[in-house]
C-alpha cells in the first residue's frame, strides 16, 4: 500500500467535513452555547433521545441486513444467527457486552467453518 493510498484524495476529506464533521459537531457546540438554559429532563429531549437510539438501531440493522465488504460473504442465516445468539448470551449473563460480542463472533466463525 503506497503513501498516496493511505492519504486518499482531498475530495473525500472535504466530503468528510461537509457530510460528517459539521453535521455532527453542530450539536455539541449548541450544547456548549445554550446548554445552561435547557431542562435535561424535558419531554422534547426524551423524544430526541428515543429517535437517536432508534437511528442507531437502524444503523446496526443496516450493517447486518445489507452487509458491507467481506461481511457480505457470510450467509444471511449466519449473520442473523450470530446477532441472535449474542443477544441471548448477553441477556443470560446479566448484560455482559463482552460475553455477547464473543458469542456472536464464535457463532459466525463456527458456522462458516461448518459450512466450509
Amino acid at each position, binding site marked *: 500500500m503506497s503513501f498516496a493510498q*493511505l492519504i486518499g484524495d482531498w475530495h473525500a476529506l472535504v466530503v*468528510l467535513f461537509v457530510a460528517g464533521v459539521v453535521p455532527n459537531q453542530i450539536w455539541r457546540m449548541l450544547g*456548549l452555547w445554550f446548554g445552561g438554559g435547557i431542562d435535561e429532563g424535558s419531554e422534547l429531549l426524551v423524544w430526541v433521545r428515543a429517535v437517536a*437510539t432508534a437511528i442507531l438501531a437502524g444503523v446496526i440493522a443496516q*450493517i447486518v441486513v445489507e452487509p458491507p465488504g467481506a461481511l457480505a460473504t457470510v450467509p444471511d442465516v449466519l449473520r442473523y444467527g450470530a446477532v441472535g445468539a449474542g443477544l441471548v448470551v448477553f441477556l443470560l449473563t446479566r448484560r455482559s457486552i463482552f460475553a455477547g460480542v464473543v458469542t456472536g463472533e464464535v457463532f459466525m466463525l463456527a458456522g462458516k467453518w461448518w459450512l466450509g
Partner: protein
Amino acid sequence: MALPPLDSPQWQSPWRAFAWGLRSITQTILTIVLFVTYLGIGALAHDTHFSLAWALASTLFVWAGPAQIILITTLGSGATIIQSAIAVTVSAIRLFPMVVSVLPLMRTPTTKRRELFFAAHLTAVTLWVECHRFLPQVPRERRIAFVNGLGFGLVSVCLVANTVGYFLAANLTQTLGAAILLLTPLSFLFSTARNSREVGDVVALALGILLYPLAAKMNSGLDILISGVVAGTIAYGVHWWREVRA
C-alpha cells in the same frame, strides 16, 4: 488504581490531573468496547474504499462511533452528501443533551466557555458515562483537565484501533475480515442495550432494528431516518403512556 483523595497535593497541578485522567482509561471495560468498535470502523473504512487518513480524520474530528458508521455506510452505498449529512446530524442530536448534562459537572463560577471546548468535543456516550462515575472523585477545579486527559487517552486508543483494523481488513482472509466487520453491530447493539434503563429505550432499540428492513424497501435514500423517527416516536409514545399520563 485508585484516584488520590480529593484533598491530596496530587491534584494541585492541572497536568497531574490530566495524567490521572489519561491513566483512568485503564479502569473501564468501555475502553475495550471502544477499541473493538473502532477496530470495526477501521475495517469498514477499508472495505468501503476510504483511505486510512480519512478514517483517522473521522475519528479525530467526528469522534462519535454511530455518526462515523452512518457516514461510511451511506457514502459507501452511494447516498448523496446531503443524504449522508442529514442522517449524521439526526444521529448526532443525542450529543446535545449529553453535553448539556455533562458540562455542569466540571463548571466552576469562573469557568470560561472556551475552557470547556475540548470537553464538549470529547463528549460522546463513553465519556458521558465515565464522567458520571469518575468526576465525584476529582476536585471541581481540576475536572476539566481530568476530562481532557481521559478523552485524549480514549481518542488515542481509537486511532490505534482504526489503524489496526484497517490493515487487518486489508490483509486477513475474507472470513476473519467479516469477523472484524461484525464487531461493530454487536458492540453497538449490546452497549446500547446495556445503557437502556427505561422501557422506552428498549422499545426504541428493538423497533428501530425491526422497522429498518421495512423502511429500506421504500428505497428513499433516507431509510435510517424514516425508521428512526417512526420507531423513536412510538417509543416516546410508550414512555408518555407510562410516565406522563400516569
